[in-house]
């Protein structure tokens, strides 16, 4: 019995060193040499400052920016504390949240889209994402926001639509997953467009 405990302790030490240290360290070495930017979190810098990651949603409340999907994290878009909402499909709280979100979208986009109805709002605009930092919105939600962006920024709607199309990530290899628009990249492109004028 004691012998088998000693054997196990030896094995535990050897395996912890091999799989707990050597394996991740070697993988990190490969990552840092071959894929430095991606391995460090796909950070985006502007003028030498980190402004976010292309893999994490961040808060956009100003009307001149495209807005993200709702987030269940505290505070919203917390990339140190990802979470689901965990609200069940018949939850009264979910009903309230969806109603509030619909009202918010109607209030924000209504003035720029005459005749906007609830049926025009895509479902991802009123539901929290899985991670709370979903960096994408559906192309449908991006197009819904286009008129507001154009009006606030004083640029043609067609230019905004064009930018959305340019920043839509299609399905991987053309058929895996669903298309999405990366909000941070799209907003950066908007800011750059203004800079060029």
């Amino acid at each position, binding site marked *: 019995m004691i012998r*088998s405990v000693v*054997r*196990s302790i030896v*094995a535990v030490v*050897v*395996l912890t060193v091999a*799989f*707990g240290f050597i*394996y*991740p360290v070697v*993988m*990190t070495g*490969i990552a840092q040499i071959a894929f430095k930017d*991606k*391995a460090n*979190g*796909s*950070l985006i810098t502007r003028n030498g400052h980190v*402004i*976010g*990651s292309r*893999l*994490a949603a*961040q808060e*956009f409340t100003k009307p001149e920016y495209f807005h993200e999907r709702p987030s*269940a994290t505290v505070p919203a878009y917390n*990339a*140190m*504390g*990802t*979470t*689901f909402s965990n*609200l*069940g*499909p*018949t939850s009264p709280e*979910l009903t309230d949240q969806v109603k509030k979100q*619909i009202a918010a979208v109607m209030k924000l986009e209504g003035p720029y889209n005459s005749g906007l109805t*609830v*049926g025009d709002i*895509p*479902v*991802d605009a009123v*539901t*929290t*994402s*899985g*991670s709370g930092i979903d960096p994408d919105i559906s*192309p449908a*939600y991006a*197009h819904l926001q286009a008129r507001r962006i154009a009006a606030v920024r004083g640029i043609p709607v067609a230019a905004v639509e064009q930018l959305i199309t340019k920043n839509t990530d299609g*399905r*991987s*290899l053309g*058929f*895996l*997953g*669903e298309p*999405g628009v990366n909000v941070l990249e799209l907003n950066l492109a908007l*800011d750059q467009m203004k800079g060029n004028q």
Partner: protein
Amino acid sequence: MTFQGTAQLIFYAVVLTGLAYPLGIYMARVYDGKLGLVNGRLAAGERWFLRLVGSAPEHEQNWKQYAGSTLVFTIVFTVLVYLLLRSQGHLPLNPDDLPGVSAPIALNTAASFVTNTNWQFYGGEYTMSYLTQMAGLAVQNFVSAAVGMAVLAAVIRGFARRTTSGIGNFWRDLYRSLVYILLPLAVILGIVLISQGVPQTFDGHATATTLQGGHQAIARGPVASQIAIKQLGTNGGGWYNSNSAVPFENLNGITDVLEDIAILLIPMAQVFMFGRMIGRMRQGWAIWGAMFVLMVAGVAITYPAEQHGSQVLRDSGVNITAGSQQSGGNMQDKEVRFGIADTSLWASTTTNASNGSVNGGHDALTPIGGAVPLVNMFFGEVIWGGVGSGLYGMFFYVLIAVFVAGLMVGRTPEYLGKKIEAREIKIAAVGALFVPSMALVLAAISVVTHAGLASVFNSGAHGFTEALYAYTSQSNNNGSAFAGYGALPFSANLGAVALYLGRFVPLLAALAVGGTLAAKKTLPESAGTFKTDGPTFAVLLVAIIVLTAGLMIFPALTLGPIVEALS
């Protein structure tokens, strides 16, 4: 359901089977010691390891010795993980200065990782230091998987061998599972994930000044190395709280399909490995067929249910119709880049295997969509199942099916030339029925006690489903959750009991079956032998599973998801 979505699911099944078959053949050679590598230069490492743990290279253990090694090894590792969790605040590699983990959470987490479950009563990125994740949890991702794989190899030898007591050497099987199977696959998958954008760094979190001038901290770490093995080893514990829904773990259609393939790759390969190791590939295909039918059935129910959307979303009037501009459906707690098809597939495969990682929130699934993962788990994780544990769990049902067939035709049941007698059937019945019974009892305890009810997050029928899901998941060593279910001492401790018993009762039962079968003679096939290598047997097997486990959970289902779907 869209054409594109359905096409993705078919693509998944085809690629998965195409990869699993050759891997299974390779794995059979690894465990049989018939691989050039094993006999050649690499074998020096194996001999070194066996010397280190004091085991003679050619030593064969009987099933009791094998079980003893497995148990002692797991207990020692449990102690290490527990101590690491408690003391991480004083240890290095903790750039974000996280404190030690509380006792109930540490107890549950240690149990959870050594049993290949990875139920998470904590949020990874804000609870666990890099040291804990790497040296504690990720090591278990390898080791607990290898333990299951080793035990399966031993049980299969029990079927293949005749009149012997030896069923292999735990230490040798452990080493081979780790070094020849899990490690190479993890390195390959890890590098592909990094190349797509999964972080792999020892720097602490990044800080950003957002476009609007706000402040954002971004958790990262050596993520890819852990995600690769968490999928391959059917572990499932995420680096981040929202698991594989977080873009840093799973960022596009490629990483999603690869990780989802990794979830079922080894469990499916083991079915082919079984066929090869007993020298009758058609036997393997029969079991493959039964598992495949059950898997497809699950996806075929979840996908339309999620696409149809929840009552709340349909009533709200927003646009939930799938089209080229959005995937529509029940997008609550789902990510845009995966949409409905990929999240439905993952919800199903992760509960087929005992993986339990998620790429969307299960608590927010529609009632019927959420019932499928529950039933998948309740079948005992035998639709592919956990690495090793899935197939040895399926053997219990196989023996029961053979027994039932024997009763119908009035002959002594046989499987692979071995007479199946009262002793084997008793053990198989315990192996098959203990875990689902325990899950029901624990769920019942949790909903009739005040302490248990305090863990429930949503009210009403959905709250009952949360509790049922929690104990079904932990008893079956899955680890996925209706994640609103709470982290109180009571549910953490009750969960730890479920985790240990759920792991070791079937494991010991499987080894016992392997041990007794190894001692038996192999009888030649006769005209009256019931065929177990064709579609008839596959159908019988599916029926046995649905009738035993399915009927056990049906009353509970009516109280939870079915009531919710009708309300």
